[in-house]
């Protein structure tokens, strides 16, 4: 007691500010990440009336034929699209980083476009290309699109950018001295590939495989459009929860969805550590040597990939600008008239989406940066910092569907029963957020928390760790150094975090599809329902709008970054 008193006496004003900041971040993550997940777990072991039933729900689930089927469907689709997307991404990033390909920046940007659009757009574009009235179908190329084929194509394109991003990083970390050593020994190209290149990117490759798998395993957007009767877990959950209001069974499926994601998360963590250990400051960057034949091949490959992307988005754009596909091809912009679509709620939905993305981006950036700063640039609060770090990287392992599910269960409950204490219940203070845009903002902040957090951590780690020491020696409080030095130096990273939050919040559907309500509609969910109701043209127009906004935000960001780089 005496000790505690002394400890408190010794606290300076700065310590108090620090304590408040770190505890606030921990509290935020506990309330909006841990609590909803706990609710989900509890629900999975209860029946509809809230009585504890142990594994009964799980047993029921595994006895149902159609649900078992959807597990095998999901695995099949996810494995196929992982193989396709990672293979393509491997050659694409290899061509861009190890071959003389012209206009690398252009190819790379085109390859990234799918990130900026809702996944439904890929599905809808597929329908225009290969559907019953699709262009290629009309040309005689018949594909059984609805079902696994459609899902696999859409997911492959969807996973391509993220796999490319990971592999580009892996390829960039090459040590030219190894290649020079091999050359002096007269090693063949194939042998160099097998003994140097592949081992070098091994961890990046593993990480790309797992991330792509998780993406396609848990995606909701594409299967909801081109899935047809081919049921997968993500759409199952939606049917269980939104269709049949069977929250408990939804929780069971949610937990099953968690398994591959958690596994991939663990693998990613391990490989990350290994990868960073493999490069050191003495490495010499790779020197690309011209080789006419393989350079031409690489360029051709890049053009093919880009062409596919361009065709997809061009078709979608075209479809959004005509009256009625394929009967009336006259030009119109009426599909973009937001006030008319989705029985008038189109405009509200669009406005809400932008508003939500803006608020998520601002709040998310602040919370993740403060969290990263307190964890990285702080000596005290060891335990809290460790907890905060763990909670901050956890969202990477939680699929959007599961976040949506757990949020709906957590916010929907008007009160929580306290276990083993019948008759006592806790009023849910967050119940009021249900049905507002705030629940969507919180879901997005949690869903996309980890990547910006890592961005902030990396950029903070890059700063000299003695800045804080010097400030302390000069008796300058830490928040002054934060404002005058740390923030200005981290500004590029902060912009990047902001853009990440914004872009992803605007197009996401997997989490928010459970949370958007008629009182607070949002664009991506409206797209799903319009598409379901056969209003494909306005749906695709809405997709294009979101894509344009994201591209615009990204371009502005690039312009700012380019200018600040030039200044230096």
């Amino acid at each position: 007691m005496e000790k505690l008193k002394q400890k408190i006496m010794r606290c300076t004003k700065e310590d108090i500010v620090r304590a408040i900041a770190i505890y606030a971040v921990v509290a935020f993550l506990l309330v909006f990440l841990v609590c909803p997940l706990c609710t989900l777990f509890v629900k999975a072991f209860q029946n509809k009336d809230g009585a504890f039933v142990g594994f009964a729900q799980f047993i029921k689930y595994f006895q149902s034929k159609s649900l078992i089927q959807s597990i095998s469907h999901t695995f099949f689709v996810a494995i196929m699209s992982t193989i396709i997307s990672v293979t393509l991404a491997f050659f694409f990033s290899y061509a861009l980083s190890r071959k003389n390909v012209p206009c690398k920046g252009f190819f790379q940007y085109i390859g990234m476009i799918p990130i900026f659009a809702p996944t439904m757009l890929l599905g809808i574009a597929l329908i225009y290309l290969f559907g019953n009235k699709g262009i290629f179908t009309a040309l005689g190329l018949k594909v059984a699109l609805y079902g696994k084929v459609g899902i696999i194509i859409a997911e492959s394109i969807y996973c391509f950018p993220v796999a490319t991003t990971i592999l580009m990083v892996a390829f960039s970390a090459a040590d030219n001295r190894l290649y020079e050593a091999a050359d002096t020994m007269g090693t063949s190209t194939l042998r160099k590939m097998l003994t140097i290149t592949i081992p070098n990117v091994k961890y990046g490759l593993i990480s790309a495989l797992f991330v792509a798998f998780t993406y396609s395993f848990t995606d909701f957007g594409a299967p909801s459009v081109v899935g047809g009767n081919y049921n997968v877990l993500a759409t199952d959950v939606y049917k269980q929860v939104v269709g049949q209001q069977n929250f408990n069974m939804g929780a069971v499926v949610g937990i099953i969805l968690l398994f591959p994601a958690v596994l991939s998360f663990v693998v990613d963590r391990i490989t990350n550590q290994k990868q960073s250990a493999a490069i050191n400051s003495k490495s010499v960057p790779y020197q690309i040597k011209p080789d006419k034949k393989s350079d031409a091949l690489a360029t051709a490959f890049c053009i093919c990939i880009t062409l596919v992307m361009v065709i997809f988005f061009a078709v979608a754009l075209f479809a959004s600008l005509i009256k009625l596909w394929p009967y009336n091809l006259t030009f119109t912009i009426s599909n973009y008239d937001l006030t008319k679509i989705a029985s008038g709620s189109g405009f509200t939905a669009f406005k809400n989406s932008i508003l939500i993305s803006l608020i998520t981006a601002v709040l998310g950036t602040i919370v993740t940066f403060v969290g990263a700063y307190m964890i990285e640039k702080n000596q005290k609060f060891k335990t809290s910092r460790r907890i905060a770090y763990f909670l901050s990287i956890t969202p990477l392992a939680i699929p959007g569907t599961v976040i949506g599910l757990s949020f709906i269960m957590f916010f929907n409950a008007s009160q929580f029963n306290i276990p083993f204490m019948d008759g006592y219940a806790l009023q849910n203070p967050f119940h009021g957020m249900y049905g507002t845009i705030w629940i969507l903002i919180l879901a997005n902040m949690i869903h996309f928390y980890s990547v910006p957090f890592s961005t902030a951590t990396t950029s903070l780690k890059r700063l000299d760790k003695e800045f804080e020491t010097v400030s302390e020696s000069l008796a300058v409080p830490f928040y002054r150094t934060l404002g005058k030095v740390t923030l200005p130096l981290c500004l590029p990273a902060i912009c990047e975090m902001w853009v990440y939050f914004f872009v992803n919040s605007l197009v996401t559907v997997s989490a928010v599809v459970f949370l958007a309500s008629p009182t607070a509609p949002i664009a991506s969910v409206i797209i799903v329902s319009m598409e379901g109701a056969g209003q494909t043209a306005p749906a695709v127009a809405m997709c294009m709008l979101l894509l344009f906004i994201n591209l615009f935000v990204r371009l502005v960001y690039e312009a700012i970054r380019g200018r600040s780089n030039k200044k230096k």
Partner: protein
Amino acid sequence: MSVNLRISNVSKVFEKNIALNNVSLDIQAGEFVCLLGPSGCGKSTLLRLIAGLDKPNEGSIYINDRNVTNLPPARRNFGIMFQSYALFPNLTAYENVAYGLRNKKMRNQDIEARVDRLFHMIKLDSAKKRLPSQLSGGEQQRVALARALATEPDFLLLDEPLSALDAKVRISLRKEICRIQKELGLTTIMVTHDQDEALTMADRIIVMNKSVVMQEGTPEEIYEHPENPFVADFIGSINFIDKEKCKLYGLCEQERAAIRPEKIELSRTEKEASLRAQIKEIEFRGFYDRITVCVSHGVQGDMILLVDVPFRMVKTMQFRIGEVVYVNLPREELLGFKTA
């Protein structure tokens, strides 16, 4: 104002890894002390404890006889400098130096006057408006020194301030730091693992190894009278002679003897008590040659000795490899150690 520092029985443990083991030191006001030791011996840790950036597990720290063990760094009034300079890259040299003053409710013109004086002192008046990236390493380190001095600290802590600089700049900055330190009469503790730096700059050297203090004393004391083989070996070069050889050649009675290469005399003529040896290697070192000789004595084995011969003598004597010479180990220069 200058202060004295006292470190009393301080220990610091990092997750079972002992960084400092019961270290005690007394540092006088105005003294320049060097902490010298191999990597990982706990020098930086000791410095951080004095700064208050870490708390010792045991022991106390006194500034001017006041116990400050639990005082936060901001209230200890010191300046600090690092190998990495740690200048704020987005602020100009001027703003870097003024950084600590801006917080002190000083009038702008007072700040300006003081910063100007500091820039004058470090002889960098022309570089005020430049960003750190536009300064050379040596200039950056001088700005860092000015920044550390700006708040008129009571004592100065330097953690390997010169290790990142090239040899020429390092030597000129050594002088600069010493001059400023003497001018201000500032108690200063500098960490280094460069023995030349410690020998030329310090009033007193504290040699550390494996988290304990091995010896403290003036540079002459440390060099001429090392108390143990570690210190003898760590500072300068030395020939160790084990007990058997000592007996064999009738050198001394102790467990282990040692002699510095420049104390050994080499000649072509045999003198009393000199030993016959053969030259094995001659290494050119600039202003002296390092000659390896092998003293042989029948079956019991040879004794390899390093001998430093000054340049003048090299010129006149013209030693050759393989030649037989006589070495003389003056008894008064022989160091004896009780431990092996």
